[in-house]
């Protein structure tokens, strides 16, 4: 092996050529099969931005309708579709995805990695997002958009006469996108924890990585309750199960709980990454490291935690007991404290540095000025008595836009101006940037400040018209004028980004003289970093002398791609010590095929095309199995390799030190959260009724206990199979796997027999419905568990799973740990709990 220090210039050029070839994108139309994080990040971000412009146009249409009282510009129905889609698109198709996009684009170079650990998963997430997004947005052109408001309160949204197909489009389209979000969260968590450059200990990570780690963790706990809610909702809409129907024991408030357990953390899921961008921008332009690194990290963690305890402040007027209102008022106020700390960290950093007031800083500080108003009105509406007046009025519309536009959109535009040189090696126009800033800043305040007053003067939100004599007309007219000034500013940004710039000379690589690692990456190269450096500072480009040139001369790890694989380093979670040389997936169609076929399943379900949905479902399964079979847990041609600087690392690891195991663990935590939400539903119904069974027969205790015993036996058989595999007894291992397989099938049948043998009719009442949904959830997971067992058997029979290379089996065992917990909870709840009441 040639050590980089001794390699000749020619040798280094050959290395670079090989590396370039490995990371190259396909040409022609195959370009779209690329999975490289730069491409995916760019496509993802552009699509999210385009959806934002679309939702912005909807907002302008609404402002035109509201400019004058009793206006006829839009019909009531179209207006209702417009505001529903505006909120939905901004939240689900712009605010969250844009950060997933930025993270996918920025994290690898920032962490000194070649790629995130699952590039194909990123690509799959992007295509899912695009298909789902186009489906949801397109519905308005067929007058079929959802029109029940972006939080879809039943019974309005479950009323088929009112909402038509729109509600199904919302539920299924967004469930599909939520899957993409969770995929991105898994990618980000594993990437940040396991793929940092050697030496980049966790307390040296760029703040952006810290924030994204926190946010991805929040996605993992926030989105699953909504997915569980979507499931209940769609069961009611498709099959008339009465989850939210008060006449049959359901309760519309359960949806509000599930939605806001998602919806409030969502606000911070949107806000924290924007703060993360600020945390990268402010030190660069204050020309010094951030002041209070540990303060801001702790504050971000605190915000993330607290954000899960605030959801009831969206429900202050639903008639909950005063004592819980007081509790949630206090919790809602508490979150202002870590938020304040984060703002003051930026101010302190600016005070301690020499500030250059560039366009990104202009958007950043302007964003703070706006956001602080949103924060202060947030403090107001967090107090229940004030919220009783302000709730569901234009005061709230103003508040949430001050928070989201000041706390999210302005920092994103700052980020675009800051990071554009990483996309095109040129800066955006300073002149246009300042013009856009002042238009947006003034336009925003002119548009939204009067809304506070309109709300306090009694204007409810979501009204398509208002009387002429009630005192809101000039406030609304001013808002409309402001909205158009604001939109003109956004247009300037779009023009600045899209105008051709190839005639301008290429700029410097680190034009702002920033200190973090992403600034050595060059837009012309797909490899992220030429070689993976050893990091000893939070701001390596400021503190580590000659780092950039040594990296670019390939003097660090993995400067070559001798075997023709895309490789990056896996390091330990806390200290970033190198553990493995990870081969990541390359260009492939399979991501597009899986995403398209899964999208087709959701679209077919919307229109009740059952056969098409089934066929597409089978195609999706086949595509995913093909993907796993050909692309994961491949046995390398040699067990170890020299990654440079004399370091020899394994090419294959399994169990807790592998990225696949982490991904499975994280997925199952999210999955478990969704399951917990369903169990919450069961007990919620129990608490609101004197007798929530309504005297109907339950599943009994016999079949649930039989099912539980069989599932636990299947789990034990699987554990035995793993032990036998470790001992090098493949034949006995396969036998044990087959036993597990039969036990799983038996357990599923017994689980089904519980409610079936007692003729529980899920459309009759909430009790049979919630029992059935728990059983169905369990059985669906058992079916996946069964497929995994078959998969391991097949891998073992084809020699792709051995005692040494056992990643598949270990990940399946991990899945089964979670499955056995699910089984214990499900069958104890449905089989034993009724005995206790």
């Amino acid at each position, binding site marked *: 092996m040639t050590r980089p220090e001794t390699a000749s210039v020619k040798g280094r050029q050959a290395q670079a050529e090989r590396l370039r070839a490995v990371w190259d994108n396909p040409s022609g139309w195959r370009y779209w099969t690329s999975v490289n994080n730069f491409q995916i990040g760019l496509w993802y971000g552009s699509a999210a931005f385009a959806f934002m412009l679309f939702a912005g146009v909807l907002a302008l249409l609404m402002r035109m309708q509201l400019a004058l009282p009793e206006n006829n510009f839009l019909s009531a129905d179209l207006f209702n579709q417009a505001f529903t889609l505006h909120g939905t698109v901004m939240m689900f198709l712009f605010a969250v995805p844009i950060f997933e996009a930025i993270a996918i684009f920025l994290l690898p170079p920032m962490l000194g990695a070649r790629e995130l650990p699952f590039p194909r998963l990123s690509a799959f997430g992007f295509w899912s997002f695009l298909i789902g997004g186009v489906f949801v947005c397109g519905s308005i052109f067929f007058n079929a958009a959802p029109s029940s408001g972006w939080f879809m309160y039943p019974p309005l949204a479950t009323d088929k006469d009112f909402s038509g197909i729109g509600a199904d489009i919302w539920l299924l389209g967004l469930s599909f996108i939520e899957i993409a979000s969770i995929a991105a969260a898994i990618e980000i968590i594993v990437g940040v924890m396991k793929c940092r450059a050697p030496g980049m200990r966790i307390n040296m990570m760029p703040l952006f990585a810290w924030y994204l780690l926190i946010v991805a963790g929040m996605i993992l706990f926030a989105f699953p309750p909504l997915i569980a809610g979507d499931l209940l909702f769609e069961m009611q809409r498709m099959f008339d199960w009465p989850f939210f129907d008060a006449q049959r024991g359901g309760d519309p408030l359960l949806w509000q709980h599930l939605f806001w357990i998602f919806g409030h953390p969502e606000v911070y899921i949107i806000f924290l990454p924007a703060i993360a961008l600020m945390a990268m921008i402010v030190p660069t332009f204050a020309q010094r490291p951030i002041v209070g690194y540990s*303060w801001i990290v702790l504050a971000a963690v605190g915000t993330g935690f607290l954000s899960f305890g605030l959801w009831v402040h969206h429900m202050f007027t639903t*008639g909950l007991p005063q004592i819980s209102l*007081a509790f949630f008022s206090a919790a809602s106020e508490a979150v202002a404290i870590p938020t304040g700390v984060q703002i003051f960290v930026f101010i302190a950093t600016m005070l301690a540095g020499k*500030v250059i007031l560039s366009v990104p800083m202009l958007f950043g*500080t302007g964003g*703070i000025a706006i956001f602080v108003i949103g924060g202060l009105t947030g403090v107001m509406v967090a107090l229940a*008595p004030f919220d*009783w007046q302000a709730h569901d009025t234009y005061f709230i519309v103003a508040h949430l836009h001050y928070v989201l536009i000041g706390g999210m959109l302005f920092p994103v535009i700052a980020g675009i101006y800051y990071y554009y040189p990483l996309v095109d090696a040129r800066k955006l126009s300073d002149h246009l940037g300042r013009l856009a800033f002042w238009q947006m800043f003034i336009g925003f305040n002119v548009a939204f400040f009067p809304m506070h007053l309109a709300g306090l003067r009694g204007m409810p939100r979501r009204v398509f018209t208002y009387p002429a004599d009630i*005192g809101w007309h000039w406030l609304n007219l001013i808002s409309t004028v402001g909205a158009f000034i604001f939109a003109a500013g956004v247009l300037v940004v779009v023009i600045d980004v899209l105008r051709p710039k190839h005639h301008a000379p290429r700029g410097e690589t680190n034009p702002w003289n920033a200190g973090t690692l992403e600034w050595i990456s060059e837009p012309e190269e797909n490899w992220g970093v030429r070689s993976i450096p050893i990091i000893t500072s939070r701001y390596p480009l400021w503190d580590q002398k000659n780092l950039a040139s040594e990296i670019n001369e390939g003097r660090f790890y993995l400067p070559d791609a001798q075997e023709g694989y895309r490789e990056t380093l896996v390091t330990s979670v806390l200290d970033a010590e190198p553990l493995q040389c990870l081969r990541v997936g390359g260009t492939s169609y399979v991501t597009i095929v899986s995403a398209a076929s899964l999208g087709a399943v959701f679209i077919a379900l919307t229109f009740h095309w059952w056969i098409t949905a089934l066929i597409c479902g089978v195609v999706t399964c086949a595509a995913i199995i093909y993907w796993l079979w050909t692309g994961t847990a491949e046995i390398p041609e040699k067990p170890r390799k020299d990654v440079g600087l004399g370091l020899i690392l394994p090419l294959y690891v399994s169990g807790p030190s592998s990225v696949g195991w982490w991904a499975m663990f994280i997925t199952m935590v999210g999955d478990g959260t969704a399951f917990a939400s369903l169990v919450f539903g069961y007990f919620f119904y129990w608490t609101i009724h004197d007798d929530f069974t309504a005297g109907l027969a339950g599943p009994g205790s016999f079949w649930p206990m039989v099912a539980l015993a069989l599932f636990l036996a299947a789990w034990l058989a699987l554990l035995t199979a793993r032990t036998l595999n470790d001992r090098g007894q493949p034949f006995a291992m396969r036998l044990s796997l087959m036993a597990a397989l039969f036990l799983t099938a038996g357990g599923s049948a017994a689980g089904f027999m519980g409610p079936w043998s007692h003729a529980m009719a899920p459309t009759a009442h909430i009790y049979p419905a919630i029992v059935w949904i728990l059983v169905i959830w369990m059985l669906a997971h058992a079916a996946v568990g069964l497929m995994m067992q078959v998969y391991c058997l097949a891998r073992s029979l084809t020699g792709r799973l051995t005692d040494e290379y056992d990643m598949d089996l270990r990940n399946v065992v991990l899945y089964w740990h979670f499955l056995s917990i699910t089984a214990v909870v499900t069958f104890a709840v449905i089989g034993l709990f009724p005995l206790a009441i």
Partner: protein
Amino acid sequence: MRADCRASVDGGIVPFMRHRNAHRLGGFAVPALLPSCLAGCSGIQSALEPAGEEAASVFNLFWFMFSGGAIIWLGVVALVMYASRARQNPHSERASGLLILWGGAIFPSAVLALLLGFTFWLMPGIRPWTALADAPQLRIEVVGEQFWWRVTYFPGDGSDAVVSANEIRLPVGQRVEFTLKSNDVIHSFWIPSLGGKMDMIPGRTNRLSLLATKPGIFRGPCAEYCGTSHALMAFSVVAMEPMAFGKWLSRCAKSSENVAAAGSDAFLANGCGACHTIKGTEATGVIGPDLSHVGSRRTLGAGILPNNEATIARFITEPDRIKPGVQMPAFGMLPHQDIETIAAYLKGLK
């Protein structure tokens, strides 16, 4: 009967029409007056012109927070602007770190603790923690419907319940308990001038107690989005002197003097009674609003039209154009004469 009812309402307050003109003047004709007008002319549906106990408390709370918030905002923005200036000698890291501690953590914690303490002290007075021991004299049940309000008065003296719709009258100076329900989707009951809102949720009964402190005419909107014509669902509120209110209620308990007037036959012959009730006639439908005294209500169509014969006729002819998504079918196919007769009849039901 009718005369003394109107006198008691209109005598004490600014009449509706005059009020309307007053703020129109403020809005368009005299822009220079706008700032002084912000709170002063906000009209009949404003939380900034409290006429009830809860609204007044919240109004004070709002001004307190608004002033404090404005000072904090100015402070933060001044600090940001100061920090944005290029400086030769930056502040020390220690001084900046102390700013995070004091400005970001300690100061907000103290302010928020004070604010919360104040609010918790305020809350039981606004909406009691537990149900009041002595039940209020008057209970009014309001049921939200798409897109109107079913109103039933339960007088405290044990006399019969009185059914009405889309208008709520209540005595000044007496606590009134509202029981709020819904038959279809979630609505929210809100009289900004008197107090905050409370949702009406199918399957649940929510309670809200309000105390009007000034006589007047107000307006309440539906505050929770409830479908196509959510924007067109409102009601008028009349806060009256208790004596006048008592008289009004006892009058409403009886059927109108004009129930047998011309038009009654047309109303019944065209099937209107299948959905509407007119006390003292064969019309006993309960699907739509009770029309027993519809002629005396201030507005028509749940707070969206002035109440006169022309608007009644228009509503009968094309309810779906006035209120998209309304359940009432259009009766435009009836002879024009019949519609006018029915409209005149309904307007006469006082």
